[in-house]
């Protein structure tokens, strides 16, 4: 499962491609899709699997809680077609349409990374997973994939499912731990037993996975620095390859935000939140993790790059294709999103309706790339900024102002946030749009 962070994850890049694309420093081409040699090709594939067994109160990902079907609990349950089957059929149909159409465009769908998020991907029935994996292979979509991540909820990880996923090509799992404190989990209305997190990690290991990511949330109502510290230590005991750690975000239209408004929960104050983030950075660094993005850390490993290559693609503005309801896509500056509407997705007129379709004009696109690129610890290439920013642009002066404050810094080739700057990234990035 996932967490608030849904598409969160993890990790790595195979030893084959050690450090180029993903590298610490995005090269200018990576930052500027226009310049990339192969426009149109999708480097990433995202699959949105929109089912959860309960809706967490902080969550604004698109997911549905299927009605309890009595059939499920008795023996032949697995065979009765239900909403998950209908969804899987629609997903496979969408996949097929894209495969065919990209084939026709001479750009066969051959991503380097696949990411299955949700929702709770591990809540999808094994029979559905089987169909999905079968089709992915059948269309030869996985041929060049060297990172295939699935998000997991500690409650729904089973040995059988893990074996099937690993057999199907999954080589990375991202587990939504969020907290080990029962009170904190309660505050989030997140239903899982914290003791199931180590169990889930163990099941992953048993299935042969050597790349596991864990998610943690801080600044949960009621949480103290001490409590966070305990959560962190428990997390580290599990020796994950990758960590995603976030300050809780109060998303509009979530139950948690509604409770905040009526005063049922209290926000952690800003100074404590700052101290928490500070502590996370210090502690993880000491534990051997490299912070490569504002909320993502990869274990330092001389033999492999453990950063999540799929997610790096988002920040480096790569092209990716999203399938499933609410999945977003990006192709050469054009963004769109499938409508977050499962019934319509399933009843499927040939193509799912799109929402939020936009093609950004160059100045906005530049700002967006700064917004994304500066989230990475490498930052963005200065030569690219200099080329894209007109001398008269007010953002020049602002950049200098922020550099003078010690919140941004110039390296030989890049502009990046300093450690101090990370605390206030949004304030800075907003001005650069």
């Amino acid at each position, binding site marked *: 499962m996932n967490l608030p*962070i849904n*598409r969160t994850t993890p990790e790595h890049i195979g030893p084959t491609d050690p450090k180029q694309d993903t590298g610490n420093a995005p090269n200018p081409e990576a930052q500027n899709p226009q310049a990339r040699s192969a426009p149109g090709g999708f480097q990433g594939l995202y699959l949105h699997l929109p089912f959860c067994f309960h809706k967490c109160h902080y969550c604004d990902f698109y997911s549905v809680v299927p009605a309890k079907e009595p059939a499920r609990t008795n023996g032949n349950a697995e065979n009765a077609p239900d909403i998950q089957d209908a969804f899987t059929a629609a997903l496979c149909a969408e996949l097929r349409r894209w495969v065919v159409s990209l084939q026709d465009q001479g750009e066969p769908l051959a991503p380097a990374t696949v990411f299955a998020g949700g929702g709770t991907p591990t809540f999808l029935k094994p029979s559905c997973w089987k169909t999905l994996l079968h089709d992915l292979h059948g269309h030869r979509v996985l041929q060049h994939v060297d990172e295939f991540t699935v998000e997991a909820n500690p409650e729904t990880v089973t040995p059988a499912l893990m074996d099937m996923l690993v057999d199907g090509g999954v080589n990375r799992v991202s587990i939504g731990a969020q907290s080990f404190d029962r009170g904190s989990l309660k505050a989030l209305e997140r239903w899982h037993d914290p003791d199931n997190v180590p169990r889930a990690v163990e099941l992953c290991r048993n299935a042969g996975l050597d790349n596991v990511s864990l998610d943690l949330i801080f600044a949960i109502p009621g949480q103290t620095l001490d409590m966070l510290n305990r959560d962190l230590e428990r997390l580290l005991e599990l020796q994950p390859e990758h960590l995603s750690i976030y300050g809780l975000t109060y998303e509009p239209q979530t139950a948690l935000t509604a409770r905040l408004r009526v005063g049922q929960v209290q926000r952690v104050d800003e*100074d404590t939140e*700052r101290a928490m983030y500070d502590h996370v950075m210090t502690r993880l660094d000491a534990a051997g993790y490299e912070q490569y993005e*504002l909320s993502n850390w990869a274990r330092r490993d001389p033999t492999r790059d453990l950063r999540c290559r799929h997610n790096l693609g*988002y920040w480096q503005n790569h092209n990716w294709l999203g399938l499933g309801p609410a999945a*977003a896509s990006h192709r050469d500056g054009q963004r769109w999103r499938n409508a977050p509407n499962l019934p319509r997705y399933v009843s499927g007129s040939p193509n799912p309706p799109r929402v939020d379709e936009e093609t950004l004009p160059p100045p906005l696109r530049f*700002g967006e790339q700064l917004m994304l690129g500066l989230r990475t610890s490498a930052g963005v290439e200065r030569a690219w900024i200099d080329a894209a920013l007109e001398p008269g642009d007010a953002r020049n002066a602002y950049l200098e102002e922020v550099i003078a404050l010690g919140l941004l810094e110039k390296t030989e080739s890049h502009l990046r946030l300093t450690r101090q700057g990370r605390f206030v990234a949004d*304030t800075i990035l907003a001005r650069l749009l």
Partner: protein
Amino acid sequence: MPAADNIRNFCIIAHIDHGKSTLADRMLMGTGAMDERTKKEQKLDSMDLERERGITIKAAAVSVEHTYNGKLYELNFIDTPGHVDFHYEVSRALAACEGAILVVDATQGVEAQTVANLYKAVDADLELIPVINKIDLPSAEPDKRAMQVEEVLGLDAADCVMTSAKTGVGVPELLDAICERFPPPKGEPDAPLQALIFDAKYDDYRGVIVYFRVVNGHFKKGDRILMMGAKRTYQVTELGKFKPDMHPTPEPFEAGDVGYMVAAIKSLEDVNVGDTITLDTARCDKPLPGYQEPQPMVYCDFYPSGDTQFDELRDAIARLHVNDASFTYEPSNSEALGSGFRCGFLGMLHMDIIQERLEREGDVSIVQTAPTVTYEVVITGKGGVKQTIQITNPSELPDMGQVREIREPIVAAEIITPTTSIGDIMKLCENRRGIYKSQKFLADDRQILEYDLPLAEIIYDFFDKLKSITSGYGTMDYHVTGFKADNLVKMDVLVNGSPVEALSLIVHRTKAEFRGRHLLKRLKEQIDRHLFEIPLQAAIGGKIIARETIKSVGKNVTAKCYGGDVTRKRKLLEKQKKGKERMKRVGTVDIPQEAFMSVLDTGE
């Protein structure tokens, strides 16, 4: 045109909401000038904003006919602006009349503006007809109100006409009373022309339309006229009356007549209410008495903000000024806020209206500085000579070493309040450095208080306070009476170490510390945390009297940002950025518009 004997020029005066506009409409209908079907809106105020705010900004005049005792009369109804800021305009409108109808709400009775308006009508030597209106309401107490009119205002209760503007009851009687009791205009039709300008309006197609009342002499279309105060001459291209639409009249206008004039006047800036029109070829000796240059009492700066450029603001102001010359403007420059305009207004409401019209009609966005009043400053000039200057902005205050005294405008205020609130109202006035003048009973449960108050102390929240203390029953009217010296000092505000002129203010020395502390607290609430710490200081002549600090942003980073979030995330940040753009950048600090207004908050 009827002979002068059959002309009646009059106005209606009333406290707001007592039914002036409704009664005016009803009288027009009664005389057939308008019927229910064409009455889409109240004819006499024709600006949207006026209707929204329930006040009359621009006066108008309508001529109607009425037959009384077998004779045909022409009734010229001259409308007066209803708001306290427009005293001078009201006095000019009254000067164009021989009679005034004083409307009193049968449920409310006499209010502050009833009293203030009555004084003005008496000053203008007008004949009065008291009217008790809204007698259709179940809670109406017409007889009691008539007695109040007699006791408080000194008018004969028996002279009151009882009306319901809503149902029309009493309106024919009122029209008869106008013909019978108001005197016909006097004046010498053969003397040199003297016509009083009591209002002017701007029309996109015809230019300025001047409303006048001929006092002596006569003139007609084609004449060449001179405006004596403005010293401009024009050829009259049209004379006419409003009935209630424009109705050109070929015959000459003679002493006693009221009408409008069109003369290819391009801008309202060229016409002054109160000015005298005479014939260029046969000038009169003296203008009519009472003319004053427009005298703004409240000033503030407008600066462009957001996407608005200086040029756009300048054009918008110039365009508005062409059709509303009641405010003044001149370019101003502030180190902190850049280029903008210093504007003068008759009062606070007037200022609000102009700002709103600029933003609405001119499509500009504005940062407005806190209004200040005009001060007279006595300084030791060159060679030790005493000299008096006027300043409209604390930043213009000369070096304090040179200043002998600072004088501020004083108003005479009439406040009507329920007797139960009298103690609190007096306390409010004392706090605002008021000087008690008198106290009178109006009825068993209400009193009139008279105070002299510094204008600076009432321009902001005084009226709101009055309303809240009296649960909405208190009313007030005031007019500026002169200037008076007091122990006033200039307080500067430093944001991040630099003084921000737009935040400086002139305060009474004994209140400086309190105001300073309060102001900094307000600023601290209103200015967002920045990437750096911002010290705030209040100082008098270099001595810091209060300080506060705005801490820097602690944490502002949205944790997740993945594929699905990119667009939404960007939109969220764009919103943050837009918010910042609406603010004014002073050095590296973004100050929101409200912060400039917090200067006014007295903290009491």
